[in-house]
């Protein structure tokens, strides 16, 4: 396995491209989720998308990715609205609302998928690949679909960049300027649903949470500017995607999704420890240095006003 295979081998190229597109889109959109302290929203919505896949299949009998992904998107969106409603109108906390939507929607999805599987319907095989994702089965049309969906989501982000930035850092100010924070929030979450829909085929329901959170947390370590953070986050996501693909496809019995996530975890760990300004190692060093210096500092600055 070397970088050259990445360009010559047809399967490998598709999988790597797919993982890269996913990494870029989820990395960039995930920044907003992380900044708005909604890191687990992606986890809840990716689980919530599952019944949509089953219902789309039951209604149309088609297994075309675009049909199933549309169903997933609609279910994820319904999940968003449900969470929003529960948090706004009851005393149940956001974190509980996420857990409720996650587990109930997923339960419905599993019930429907098992129901479909036991109808003795030979055509259904493969629906459950969305649970864990099967990056290795990505073909050129999948990658194209992913790119178009991701491109649309990112295009939307560019158009509303100023508004989303304001929403992420100061929703109250955004409201006072006349933007509708609730509606903008739902729109932003809908874009995240698009990223999830792209990720379902590649890394699956469970690991999607990390694809949104990981790159953003890593990127945040290196910069204080949103634009740089978005860029870095996309790069980290793409790097994890390509690294995971290369690590998995060379050997037998190693699934791509988990390898992408483990690559990403490595990037996050390195960023947390060694990023120049916010790295924990440097902070620790500075702290012990400061402790050594402290007695002298205290003498150097006598208490005033006595």
């Amino acid at each position, binding site marked *: 396995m070397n970088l050259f295979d990445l360009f010559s081998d047809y399967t490998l190229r598709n999988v790597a491209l797919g993982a890269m597109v996913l990494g870029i889109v989820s990395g960039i959109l995930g920044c907003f989720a*992380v900044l708005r302290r909604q890191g687990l929203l992606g986890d809840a919505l990716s689980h919530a998308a599952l019944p949509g896949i089953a219902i789309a299949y039951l209604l149309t009998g088609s297994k075309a990715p675009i049909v199933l992904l549309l169903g997933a998107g609609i279910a994820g969106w319904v999940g968003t609205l449900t969470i929003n409603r529960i948090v706004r109108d009851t005393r149940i906390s956001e974190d509980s609302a996420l857990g409720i939507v996650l*587990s*109930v929607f997923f*339960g*419905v999805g599993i019930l429907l998928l098992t129901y479909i599987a036991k109808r003795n319907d030979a055509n259904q095989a493969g629906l459950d690949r969305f649970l864990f994702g099967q990056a290795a089965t990505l073909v050129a049309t999948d990658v194209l679909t992913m790119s178009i969906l991701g491109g649309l989501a990112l295009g939307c982000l560019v158009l509303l960049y100023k508004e989303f930035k304001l929403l992420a850092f100061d929703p109250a100010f955004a409201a006072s300027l006349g933007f509708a924070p609730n509606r903008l929030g739902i729109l932003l979450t809908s874009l995240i649903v698009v990223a999830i829909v792209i990720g379902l085929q590649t890394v699956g329901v*469970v690991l999607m949470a990390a694809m949104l959170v990981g790159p953003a947390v890593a990127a945040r370590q290196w910069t204080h500017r949103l634009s740089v953070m978005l860029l870095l986050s996309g790069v980290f996501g793409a790097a994890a995607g390509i690294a995971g693909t290369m690590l998995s496809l060379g050997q037998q019995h190693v699934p791509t*999704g988990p390898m992408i*996530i483990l690559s990403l975890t490595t990037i996050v760990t390195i960023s947390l420890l060694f990023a120049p300004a916010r790295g*924990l190692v440097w902070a620790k060093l500075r702290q012990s240095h400061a402790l050594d210096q402290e007695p002298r500092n205290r003498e150097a600055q006598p208490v005033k006003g006595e």
Partner: protein
Amino acid sequence: MSSTFAIILTGILVAAACASLGCFLILRRMAMLADAISHAILPGLVAGYFIAQGPSLLAGFFGAALAGLITVGLVELLKNTQRVGGESAIGIVFPAMFALGTFLVSKYYADVHLDADAVLYGNIEFVGFDHWYLGETDLGPQSLWIMGGLCLINFIFITLFYKELKLATFDAGLAATLGFSPILIHYGLMAVVSITTVGAFTAVGAILVVALMIVPAATAYLLTDRLPWMIGLAIGAGAIAAVLGFGLAFMLNGSVAGAIATITGVEFGLALLFSPKQGLVARAQRLARQRIQFAADTLLVHLLQHEGSPEAANESTISHLQSELQWNNKFAQRVLDLAQRRSLVRCQGQQLELTTSGRERSQQVLQLGRG
């Protein structure tokens, strides 16, 4: 014991064990930590399998419980660095653990019965077949013993530490001042949540554990303000979901775990809509009532302002209200009905006038308004 009965009873025991703990998770805003633990125990199970050189209940149990506590510890550690928000910390740690588990399973145990979908949605359907034997005596299904034991542990834990849990949940600061360590209680609760998750998920899978921990407790939270009632209602809702869920799964010939989770969702939906105090319907009714009451007060003040003045005759007709206060016909009628029912306003043909109690009420309103 018939296998159907064993399945339903296991379901009820899982519901009771999970829902009672879930109340504290909901109140402490840690619902998603339960989700994280339920996924993160996979590598622990694999480690247990590796150490015991095969499927061993005890080794798997300890491995998984340890993995659960490591997850909680890592999340706390990340949070304390102040580089990462609490929810992002969870979102980084548990997928990493789950990915590690899936990697180990597919790399080294591709052909053993430890597949990841069993982890996600379990196989409660088979609990009737796995019996425990003591010598020659059949002790009954293994999962019944495990879940029964866990129920017992949880009930003992909650009873023994009820006061501490309650205090640490509602007022962590006070608990710390009084000498109870909130950290100790946090880890104690997390330890019980971890072993319950491990025990339950072999029977019902990770997702149902989460559903049964969070959803019945949230349902109960919508129905009552008292902690003991909440715990009781949560257990009840969970048990009903277990029974009805089994029926639903039987009808659709689908996954029992998925069906039970679905029913917990239906219960929550019903409570969300129809809870007497917290429900959306009650809330909408309350809002509508308040709107009418407020409008009635507005009417009283309006009448008081113009009482005795030359334009009073003109200002206090019903049609004038509609144009000046921009009330539509129906709304104005409802406001008038309320005011007349409480004998605050008298109606003389088209003319409205204040009664004595109406005058008092409107002066009261004005005073309230001045604060």
